[in-house]
């Protein structure tokens, strides 16, 4: 499973918002995230929440989460908190594997003063796009 949220802005400067995407791989479980996910194999897009219609919008920040299709949000959240606590003093973009999950977070410098709020908003959006976790295997 690949979950991603993008804070985007149209090339004209407006509108601006967050788009989120849920991809599934049909692989219910793994011990470590396969290295080809998400760049070589994003998976099959099964749901998206769009506020600014693609394509061609500039990405101002993003959050990527790669996890097994059967991962519960309690597991993802626990790993996510660990990830942020490990990387938060490092230069962006951040990337790391915790447990069965891969996390990536990047943002442009102008958003750095509010990086925590930005990260939180993106996290809420990827949770929202995964609106029915119990039905992932049926999609």
């Amino acid at each position, binding site marked *: 499973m690949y979950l991603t949220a993008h804070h985007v802005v149209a090339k004209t400067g407006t509108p601006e918002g967050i788009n989120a995407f849920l991809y599934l791989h049909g692989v219910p479980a793994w011990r470590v995230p396969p290295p080809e996910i*998400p760049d070589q194999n994003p998976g099959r*897009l099964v*749901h998206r929440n769009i506020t600014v219609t693609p*394509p061609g919008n500039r990405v101002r920040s993003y959050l990527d989460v790669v996890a097994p299709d059967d991962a519960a949000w309690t597991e993802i959240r626990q790993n996510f*908190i660990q990830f942020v*606590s490990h990387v938060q003093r490092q230069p962006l973009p951040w990337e790391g594997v915790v447990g069965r999950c891969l996390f990536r977070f990047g943002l442009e410098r102008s958003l750095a003063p509010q990086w925590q709020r930005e990260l939180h908003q993106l*996290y809420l959006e990827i949770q929202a796009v995964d609106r029915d976790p119990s039905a992932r295997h049926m999609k």
Partner: protein
Amino acid sequence: MIGAAQRYRELLVDLQFQRATAEDSLAQAEEAAFAAELDICWQSMSVAEQEAIERQLADGSLPDAPAALRTEDCAVTEGSWCAPRKAA
């Protein structure tokens, strides 16, 4: 307590996220629960670990970030196997 310093850092991140979710009005009982666990971790840390965390908390510097991501989004439709963003 093994890993007390790491647990302390995780609790701080978790607390920030809980506060953000509650729009800075986290219930007093939840704040108190975090405070109690933070205190247990703090008491379990070595002096060096406590000093390291104090330095970290006092350091108001922002994480370094690139001026621009040089990335744009892509049109993707449900059922496709295409990535949703690419290098601009």
